[in-house]
């Protein structure tokens, strides 16, 4: 028997539930973590070189998990093939999904290949051509030289530059899904794509801060404090931008004199004085923007790891609250009834907290798999053979002197 939010009764309901809150959240994390990787790839900030491979993996794992949320919210998910067979683009914003998502996947595959190619080839060489995994991941490339690595970096720069555009497109189109719905006064604003992209940057940077620290702790490595503080600086810059966007949004939708009647009525009735006021003022503005800004002002907080963790987690919570305030609050405004629509989120079943946890679990498992396959660890990086020549000659001398087990494979450049 059908239960939970599958059963709709009455004239008005919140049709897009928690899964659609999670969809822009996850896609925002995709876009944000990709931009963190492009800080190294495009903008050549040496500080973030160690984090860039990890950011690519996080972004790819979340990208694979993102469509699960939409499929989980659809009532007939087995009809997904119709999206490809008879997609209604360019008229329907949702129909863009297949196009944008698939091209983003292809781009991310290229990005994964070029980001790890040199390391994979060197690992193949180290395994003396025996490792099937690295033979597959290198796709026939056997160039382990320093020149090849610099060429990879040039390719990565171009790919990441396109990727930033793709990330903005991927996330901006989700904002446009809401911004183009003129039946919902709280959604129908041209600010929506920009609001989404800015908060995506914020949440992606915060996620990468948390992931970086967690991974370092997991491997018992010292956390690179310069890197963490650099990320925090970017985080606060984007939080300021987010604050600006929220202020613009507030002015153009909350104040009756500045906007249309239904917009200000809905905003005041739902977000200012209504059921979502604590989410808006408490979580989105207070926790999501207030805590990182206040934490940044206090030097003891911003310099400590605990303070950074507090700021990052607060931002992650605040951005989720922002998605909630868009998706749920927009639907709580009634179209034809005379009051606010009520919403109840179930713990288990369709469109529930359980399914959201499941989607994040899928993303985590995919990330674990990717992190196991790809050599992203900065401390396990194999330097190019040119860098090793000096070491090799000394090793040969040692071998000539009769010390066993130190000779490397000859040349080190090419294996069959």
């Amino acid at each position: 028997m059908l239960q939970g939010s599958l059963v709709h009764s009455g004239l008005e309901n919140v049709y897009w539930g928690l899964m659609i809150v999670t969809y822009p959240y996850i896609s925002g994390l995709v876009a944000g973590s990709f931009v963190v990787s492009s800080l190294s790839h495009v903008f050549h900030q040496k500080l973030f070189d160690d984090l860039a491979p990890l950011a690519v993996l996080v972004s790819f794992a979340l990208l694979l998990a993102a469509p699960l949320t939409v499929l989980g919210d659809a009532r007939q998910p087995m009809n997904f093939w119709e999206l490809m067979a008879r997609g209604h683009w360019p008229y329907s914003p949702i129909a863009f999904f297949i196009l944008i998502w698939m091209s983003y996947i292809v781009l991310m595959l290229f990005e994964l290949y070029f980001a790890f190619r040199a390391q994979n080839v060197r690992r193949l060489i180290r395994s003396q051509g025996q490792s099937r995994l690295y033979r597959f991941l290198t796709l026939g490339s056997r160039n382990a030289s320093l020149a090849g690595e610099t060429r990879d970096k040039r390719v990565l720069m171009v790919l990441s530059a396109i990727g930033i555009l793709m990330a903005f497109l991927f996330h901006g189109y989700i904002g446009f899904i809401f911004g183009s719905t003129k039946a919902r006064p709280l959604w129908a604003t041209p600010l929506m794509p920009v609001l989404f992209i800015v908060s995506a940057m914020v949440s992606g940077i915060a996620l990468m801060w948390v992931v970086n620290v967690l991974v370092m702790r997991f491997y018992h490595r010292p956390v690179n404090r310069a890197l963490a503080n650099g990320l925090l600086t970017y985080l606060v810059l984007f939080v300021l931008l987010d604050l600006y966007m929220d202020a613009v949004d507030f002015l153009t939708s909350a104040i009756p004199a500045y906007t249309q009647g239904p917009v200000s009525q809905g905003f005041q009735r739902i977000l200012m004085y209504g059921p979502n006021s604590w989410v808006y003022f408490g979580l989105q503005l207070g926790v999501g923007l207030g805590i990182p800004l206040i934490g940044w002002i206090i030097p003891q907080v911003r310099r400590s790891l605990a303070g950074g963790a507090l700021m990052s987690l607060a931002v992650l919570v605040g951005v989720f609250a922002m998605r909630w305030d868009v998706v749920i609050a927009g639907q709580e405004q009634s179209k034809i009834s005379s009051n606010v629509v009520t919403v109840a989120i179930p713990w288990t079943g369709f469109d529930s907290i359980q399914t959201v946890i499941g989607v994040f679990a899928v993303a985590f498992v995919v990330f674990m798999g990717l992190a196991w396959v790809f050599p992203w660890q900065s401390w396990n990086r194999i330097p190019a053979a040119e860098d090793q020549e000096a070491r090799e000659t000394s090793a040969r001398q040692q071998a000539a002197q009769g010390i066993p087990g130190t000779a490397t494979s000859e040349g080190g450049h090419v294996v069959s």
Partner: protein
Amino acid sequence: MGQGDESVKPEQKPVARRRILRQMAIVAISVSAAGTLLRSKAQAKSLQALAAASRKQWKGESRAQVQYYNTKPRWASWTVPQLNVSDGWSEPSGWMSKIENSRNLPYIHDNFNRLLPVTKLPHHWVMVIDLRRCIGCQACVVSCKSENNVPVGVYRTWVQVVETGTMVPDSQGSVVTDQGTFEPNVKRFSLPRLCNHCDAPPCVEVCPVKATFKREDGLVLIDYPKCLGCGYCINACPYDARFFNPIQQTADKCTFCVQRLDRGLLPACVTSCVGRARIFGDLNDPNSEVSRLIASYPTTHLKTTLGTKPQVFYIDLDGVLAEDGANTFNTLYPYAVGTNTEEYDDLTGKVLLQTPTGGERGTP
């Protein structure tokens, strides 16, 4: 002895192997048998439950239909009619083309400007609702439910009975409450609502899989088997005319009773309207009743500013209800309000939405 040992060992080995193989086979067979037994038991139980539920739900249906519903519970609905071909109904695969579009009218998913009468189209179906004649009896709601088999809790058409205005504080007033005594300075309306079959329908334009479409004669319809159930059209409709059908789990809406219309009958709500408040007809025919009504009376639409070009015309519609109904009236009849709104809370104190988190939302 040494020879004996050697001769015994090769004999013992195959015996042991055989024994192990036999044990493994027995274990595997017993495990699979137990599994099948358990599974068949569970299946029988669930089938029994399904059959009982369907017996409850589909009391009047034939045995074959009940079996069909049991095998495909999510599609257990009227969207794929299991009807007798000799009655004029086609097979499920062809129902869309043969039943709902016998004249092969083109479907339009976007660029609705092509509907402009450059060439004269055969029909353009519209509805005129004369609010002077509506008494709010809800007969149209009942006939729509029975004609289209609309599930409990959702509506393809409904009549909002509302009042606009204010309650004026007055010591001699007729309304006595805890907050004081009031005299109503209000006006009362019955407002029949249904899909407006817009000429620029946002719901059709946003459908990602072209499952919903505008037929050339003006009807906005849904091809249910293609529906993804994403809910975008439901959110994009400014009139809340669309809903999730809780049985078939797709979007659903008023069709102007297309199954009747294609056979030359009027929509069910029109035939059952006691005061002839609902008038249906062809706007392309200058002699039709709707054309003459629209020509001789001032008519208006709901939410004209959204530019959806609705094709349900209202006579004597209050401007407050037309443009911005949601915050300017009080609902009188709880059975025509959203049972999932705080409005319903105010009227009855409770919302009957079941949540797994514990009990019913709204209970104290």
